[in-house]
């Protein structure tokens, strides 16, 4: 390598070489090396494979075994995932001890290892072909198409599967035409707001100034969200291809990928990808032999949630404290270092090469009329199949939770979905058939946000959920504007009072008034949406708040301060075991008479509960 590609012939040669490499390497065995699988021991599995595959021919043919570390496949709960591509088989929850059996049985002799296949709880059967796994069946993986299927650290593999192909077309068009295609596709910002991407590009293209920047916002900070992370780790070149297209369209010559330092694997793979792209002339001076030049820097953020807000992000790149600024001026006119700047998130850019390659109309056929395309979600919580999913926009919550997600874990009842992270809101049973679109969600007090989907079951206390998110937001407030800085802190204090059973009805009014003031009055988007978890739970679960405040009772039985442990007079035999075990001396009584718990001393540790030989102690 090292030679820069200057024309289509050279590109075809490069692709041919990649193809040869791809095929001659042998039967592909993919080891998912996304962060989840890595944590489950993907590297150990890989190393054992590496050792055992030597001299093994695939199913007694001439084919060698080609071992590939890939990015995230999304089915994280079932990691480590191992794919035998030629047979379309996916093994789940593979441990390093299992590798020998896979090699011996499947790779050598073609016998599928049944016990390592995915077990579908609905049908109570093992699923042989990965396309039949319910988790994947209803998904439409386009921006995630390569994730988990190619080696993210090989530009050859990316080009082999069609990568950087669209750039030839882009470079032959005018910037106006490129913007027009994006506009026609109807692509909307996947970072949460859903602003029409094409229009944003037009703004930057039309902004005055010679120097312009393109920024990719990879500062994914929502708890439980890992969509962008998976793309950056699993298919970094697609993101780069999208950015190059954007830079060409708006007339920028310099770009930044702003990624959290907490994503070290993403940082590493992005740096590798940028270097590889520079080596073959995809990035740098005179891209693909054209007049167009563009370079990308990977910039690590220090992990402040607020730096996901675009003006704070730009301040951070500039070396300033990451605090949002008022808009206008918008980044399109006065952004990074005061220059016109295009800023989109990872998923948005990753959709661009697909649009350029397949056309705007193809994109519009995915999803719904006002919300074309697909959206990735991080599906987590009390659900059977948690992981990373990509679905056409407009899919209903029911399909996501019950088909893809496989329903609620342990046969529990569905209660709600928290969507959009700390800035989002809750959807309940009544919203199960609501199509997931930007507008519909806003109407019911939630938002697509960056795409976190936390499924909650009947055992969840909604007040506690609001408290959890408020705790997060107040910790992550930048401290600039009064309403967010002091407002989130005081909302948290009130929520804490409620879950501790110390609140009065007037506190609820105050909470609501404060939430509205913070929503209307905060400086940046993060502040304006910080009260959403409160407002949304108040809207749909006010009775739970009232139960905490008036009855001093947590309906879900979660809030420990509101639990009471009591001794059943009928069942107690007066053995004194509980009194001896109680760490705070809250239980007293006489032998062979009923014992009593002093509720003012009880810390609800539950030691007595499990110890009572007569099951006389209960939580009420």
């Amino acid at each position, binding site marked *: 390598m090292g030679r820069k590609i200057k024309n289509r012939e050279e590109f075809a040669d490069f692709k041919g070489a990649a193809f040869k490499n791809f095929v001659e390497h042998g039967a592909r065995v993919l080891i998912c090396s996304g962060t989840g699988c890595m944590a489950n021991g993907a590297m150990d599995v890989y190393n054992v494979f590496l050792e055992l595959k030597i001299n093994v021919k695939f199913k007694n043919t001439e084919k060698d075994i080609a071992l590939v570390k890939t990015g995230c496949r999304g089915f994280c709960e079932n990691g480590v995932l191992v794919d035998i591509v030629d047979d379309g088989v996916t093994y789940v929850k593979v441990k390093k001890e299992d590798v020998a059996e896979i090699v011996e049985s499947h790779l050598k002799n073609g016998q599928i290892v049944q016990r390592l296949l995915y077990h579908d709880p609905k049908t109570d059967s093992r699923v042989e072909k990965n396309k039949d796994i319910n988790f994947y069946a209803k998904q439409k993986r386009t921006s995630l198409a390569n994730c988990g299927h190619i080696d993210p650290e090989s530009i050859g593999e990316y080009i082999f599967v069609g990568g950087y192909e669209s750039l030839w077309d882009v470079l032959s068009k005018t910037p106006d035409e490129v913007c027009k295609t994006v506009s026609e596709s109807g692509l909307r910002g996947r970072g949460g707001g859903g602003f029409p991407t094409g229009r944003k590009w037009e703004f930057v293209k039309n902004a005055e100034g010679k120097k312009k920047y393109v920024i990719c916002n990879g500062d994914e900070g929502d708890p439980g969200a890992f969509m962008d992370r998976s793309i950056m780790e699993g298919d970094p070149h697609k993101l780069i291809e999208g950015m190059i297209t954007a830079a060409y369209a708006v007339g920028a010559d310099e770009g930044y990928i702003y990624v959290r330092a907490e994503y070290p694997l993403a940082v590493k793979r992005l740096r590798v990808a940028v270097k590889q792209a520079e080596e073959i002339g995809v990035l740098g001076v005179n891209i693909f032999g054209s007049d167009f030049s563009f370079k990308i820097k990977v910039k690590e953020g220090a992990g*402040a949630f*607020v730096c996901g807000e675009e003006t704070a992000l730009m301040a951070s790149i500039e070396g300033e*404290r990451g*605090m949002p*600024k*008022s808009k*206008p001026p918008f980044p399109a006119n006065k952004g990074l270092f005061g220059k016109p700047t295009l800023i989109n998130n990872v998923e948005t850019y990753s959709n661009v090469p697909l649009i350029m390659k397949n056309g705007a109309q193809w994109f519009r056929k995915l999803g719904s009329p006002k919300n074309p395309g697909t959206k990735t979600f991080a599906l987590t919580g009390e659900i059977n199949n948690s992981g990373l999913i990509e679905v056409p926009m407009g899919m209903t919550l029911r399909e996501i939770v019950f088909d893809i997600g496989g329903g609620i874990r342990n046969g529990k009842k569905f209660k709600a979905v928290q969507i959009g992270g700390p800035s989002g809101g809750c959807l309940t049973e009544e919203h199960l058939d609501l199509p997931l679109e930007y507008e519909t969600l806003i109407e019911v007090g939630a938002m697509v946000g960056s795409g976190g989907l936390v499924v909650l079951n009947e055992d969840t206390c909604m007040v506690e959920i609001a408290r959890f998110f408020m705790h997060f937001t*107040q*910790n*992550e*407030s*930048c*401290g*600039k*504007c*009064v*309403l967010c*800085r*002091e*407002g*989130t*802190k*005081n909302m948290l*204090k009130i929520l804490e009072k409620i879950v501790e059973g110390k609140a009065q009805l007037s506190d609820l009014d*105050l909470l609501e*008034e*404060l939430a*509205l*003031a*913070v929503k*209307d*009055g*905060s*400086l940046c988007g993060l502040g304006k949406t910080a009260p959403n978890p409160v407002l949304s739970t108040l809207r749909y679960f006010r009775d739970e708040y009232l139960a905490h405040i008036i009855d001093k009772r947590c309906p879900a039985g979660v809030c420990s301060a509101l639990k009471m442990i009591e001794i059943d007079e009928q069942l107690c035999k007066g053995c004194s075991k509980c009194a001896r075990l109680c760490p705070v001396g809250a239980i007293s009584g006489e032998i062979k008479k009923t014992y009593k718990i002093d509720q003012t001393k009880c810390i609800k540790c539950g030691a007595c509960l499990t110890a009572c030989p007569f099951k006389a102690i209960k939580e009420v």
Partner: protein
Amino acid sequence: MDKKACDKILYIDDKPFAIGNEKNLLEVIRNAGYDLPTFCYRSDLSVYGACRMCVVEIEGRGVQASCTVPPEPGMKVTINTEKTRRIRRMVIKLLLANHSKDCTTCSKSGECDLQEAASRLGITDIPFECEEKKHPLDTGNPAVIRDPNKCILCGACVRTCREIQGKSVLDFVYRGSNTIVSPAFKKNLDEVNCTFCGQCVAVCPTGALRIRSELDNFWKMVLDKNKKVVVQVAPAVRVAFGEAFGIKPGKNLIGMITAALRKVGVDKVFDTTFAADLTIMEEATEFVNMLKSKKDFPLLTSCCPAWVRHVEQKYPQFISHLSTCRSPQQMFGAVAKELLSKEYGIRREEICVVSVMPCTAKKSEARRKEFSVNSDPDVDVVLTTQELIKMVKAGNINFSALEPQEMDSPFGVFSGAGVIFGASGGVAEAALRTAYKLVTGEALGEIEIKPLRGLKSFKEFAVNIKGEVISVAVVNTLSQASKLLEDIAAHKVHYHLVEVMACPGGCIAGAGQPYSIDRMAIREGRLKGLYQDDVDSRIRVSYENEEVQKLYDKWLQNPNSEIAHQFLHTHYHNRKRITGEDIGLFRKGSEVLPKTTVCVCVGTSCYVHGSYDFIEAIMAKIRAEGLEDAVMVKATFCLQQCGHGPNIKIDDQIISHATVDRVSEIFDRYIRVKYKK
């Protein structure tokens, strides 16, 4: 209304208002007769938009902070809506919930913007759980007290220090509700590059940054029968003092001030302006001598202590260009103590010199070691205009009933040239008036040098003195001063004389002057007052001040004479290094062995070059040699040899390139030799 005018109309509460040159909607609203409160907006600083007090509803755009919105024709703005009222009231309640509760004893009480807004919006209870912050106060310097517990994080000080002064002494640290404003590394102001200009104090809406009051000491001196209390009043004080009593800025109240001071019992009231004339005689002579000897120009003025400190901190290479003349405050102190002690026949210590200044940096200047004789300071107490106002009130004086009085002789006589010292450009103008006379023997034709006047931060002027074109630059604010010095250093510009004042517009806008939000108009007023006083003066050039002449005749001989140097001139120090404690790493007491101290720089550059490795290696070596009782190892910051790191200092000797492989060699050469049996 014609179409063009129509294009520049917006609607506030359904009434049309013309858009003029306003930078933002807030200014349009204020010009339209609304008094929308703000904490963070200052017209001369960048827009911050954080306090959310100036929110309005704009049709189609919802709630917006009006300071952040550019005015657009056709905009429909509503000031008071359910939402904006709720937000304003909520902001106050939230701020009060964790604000210090000692309003009644706060020095800002009565002038506090937070207090006023709370009262205006009728906030009578705080529904939130109150939580008082408990940050330590920064009281380590003579000028400014920093009290983070009263800070509402409006950022005005941060922006002032960065944008006006170019110093960035203060910035935000920590996140969310833990955010505070602080100098780097949580150091105190006296340990960092603060000049005590106090402009942060002048913009603080609460008592979080306040002037360190010396009033208690003043009263002690006044009430002490054994002390003769002599007061000097600076020029800029007289045109701002009245603002506290509802009198328009610019009105010269020196007669009333004199009367008030006498009424509380001070012995003599003099004018710093007299000392300003003395300064001009010295400085103009210094300048003329430079012209004669063709010395390196420019001559930098030295009247402003914040500016002097700035040069010492940031541009020590320019120290030799600073005029050696003491400031008028310090000239006055030195002369008064010397002459009046003789006149009264008492000891120097029994005279108490009080100065009334528009300035916080003067408090710091008076504490400089150079300005005391046997630990007796030339100036004992420095009061700001604000403290003078408080003194008059605390002294139970009915100010409006006072009759103006004349100042005492001899230091009450002054020229108009001395008066304009209070304005940016005034020192240069006064100096030129005298320098021209000294060189040519004739008076300057046009005595008023208009190009050097006004609030602009940069002004210049050239005058032909005996065939030589003398160029003068006048700057105010330290950011402008830094820019000019950089240009001079880069030989982009050349000037003979450079006058610098740290405050925007000069001393009239000093941090000791009465607090006000609407600062631009007030500065204009004060400025006018000073120049009017010049016009009204009997004499307008310093060399005609007969009392100054008598001083030379009787005592000082000539300007720049040896005795003049002793009393009227000074010297400066390089303060480039951040002060503060070294960090002891390795230390045990030993009475037997001689001590050696090894300081290893852990500044960024040396750290990058491996100074941490050196620390570990040298400590291991010392332990191995059994000398841990004798050798002290410390981590220190910046030995100013950054290009040659890692740098270490063994006792007083700096050793560069102290890399880890040289540990044994360095140890043998500099440490072992001391302990050879």
